[in-house]
């Protein structure tokens, strides 16, 4: 869980950095997208590294989900008889309690997101357009409901990260200084959340067009 989660966190950081290039203009953003496909060429074939990274991501996501299912099943096995009274949480953290279902929701969001931005199936501009155009078209003011959906999902991802980051450190035995690391995890999650939110919001509100 922790290891696969860590891989995904590194991806998210890179992904966010790439997204933010949109503020540098269409050329820069499209150039970055193209570079992703060419990096390592000619040592590696066209799209070589990207495919490798994508494969890695798929593996990480699969591992992450597999671990989650194993943990959930272990939990169910460990408590065959449930409490009759509603169990009241005493620990703080909405984020912590929503890890499991939050994760499922995020999974569906990722599928939509891929259909929208990667494959263009759910995007008004379609697959043929440049990444920049797809992005701008995807979040145009008229499609505000898509933006709302993204915002909710990204916040969900943020919450997932807030617990997940710290939890990973804990599982890997690194979280000895509890409050400091917890604050750090919260900070990084907030940073990623904001980083991912500014792009669609900027487009919807017409800052980037």
């Amino acid at each position, binding site marked *: *869980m922790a290891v696969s989660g860590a891989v995904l966190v590194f991806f998210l950081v890179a992904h966010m950095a790439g997204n933010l290039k949109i503020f540098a203009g269409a050329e820069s953003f499209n150039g970055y997208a193209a570079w992703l496909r060419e990096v390592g060429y000619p040592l590696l074939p066209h799209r070589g590294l990207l495919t490798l990274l994508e494969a890695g991501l798929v593996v990480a996501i699969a591992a992450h989900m597999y671990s989650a299912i*194993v*943990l959930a099943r*272990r*939990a169910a*096995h*460990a*408590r*065959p*008889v*449930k*409490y*009759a*009274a*509603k*169990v*009241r*949480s*005493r*620990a*703080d*953290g909405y984020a*912590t*309690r929503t*890890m499991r279902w939050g994760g499922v929701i995020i999974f569906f969001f990722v599928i939509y997101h891929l259909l929208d931005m990667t494959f263009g199936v759910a995007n008004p501009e379609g697959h043929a357009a440049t990444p920049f155009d797809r992005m701008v078209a995807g979040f145009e003011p008229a499609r505000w409901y898509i933006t709302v959906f993204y915002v909710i999902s990204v916040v969900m991802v943020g919450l997932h990260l807030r*617990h997940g980051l*710290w*939890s990973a*450190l*804990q*599982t*890997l*035995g*690194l*979280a*000895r*200084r*509890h409050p400091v690391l917890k604050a750090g995890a919260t900070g990084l999650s907030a940073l990623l959340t904001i980083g991912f939110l500014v792009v669609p919001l900027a487009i919807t509100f017409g800052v980037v067009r």
Partner: protein
Amino acid sequence: MNLTLKVWRQSGPDDDGRLVRYEIEDVSPDMSFLEMLDVLNERLILAGDDPVAFDHDCREGICGMCSMMIDGVAHGPQKNTTTCQLHMRHYKDGDTIVIEPWRARPFPVVKDLVVDRSAFDRIIQAGGFISVPAGSAPDAHATPVPKLDADAAFDAATCIGCGACVAACPNGSASLFTAAKITHLGLLPQGQPERGSRARAMVEQMDEEGFGGCTNTGECTAVCPKGIPLDTIARMNADYLRASRKSG
């Protein structure tokens, strides 16, 4: 005050069990929670009924025997407090209280609210000790221990083995219990020689008993009567991973 209790009654491991409703009158706010149940039991015995079986002994919050899920919270509403130290002044007239046993596969119900926690003993047997036969010890001052280490070891060592951590954990994990002992002994110089093997053996025993995995929800430490901190689990994981790497 008058209260309604819904108490889990189960005559033995093979019985299905059910919540049974009892009305109880004239409860004094100065009574402890267990004294309130004593009053109920006196009544049941005189009526020829089976009294509600529950584990208890010292009734001063240290033996770890009492173990009740009260309205969905292990040991009830007061923080850092065992069931026996909970007093009725936290309730008001007309309240309904649901009382259940700890729920976990490795803690099978023996009767009513009594569960079998011998899994904890077996986790300790796996390595929760320092191997030092009586009479073989060097002078107590031979090895100074930094005060901060000793204090941190003490904080972990205050675990009373009640099992509230398991009861409250959504995963039914025994990580806090196991980690408390691994941390206590792992922080002291005397505990170093067996530190790695101890962590490995205890964690493996914990898994073998059928406890769930830890997802760091923090529910355990929130209900722990002794407030064992969550970073003990990080320490356990670190010791476990290091030991596993070393011996492959």
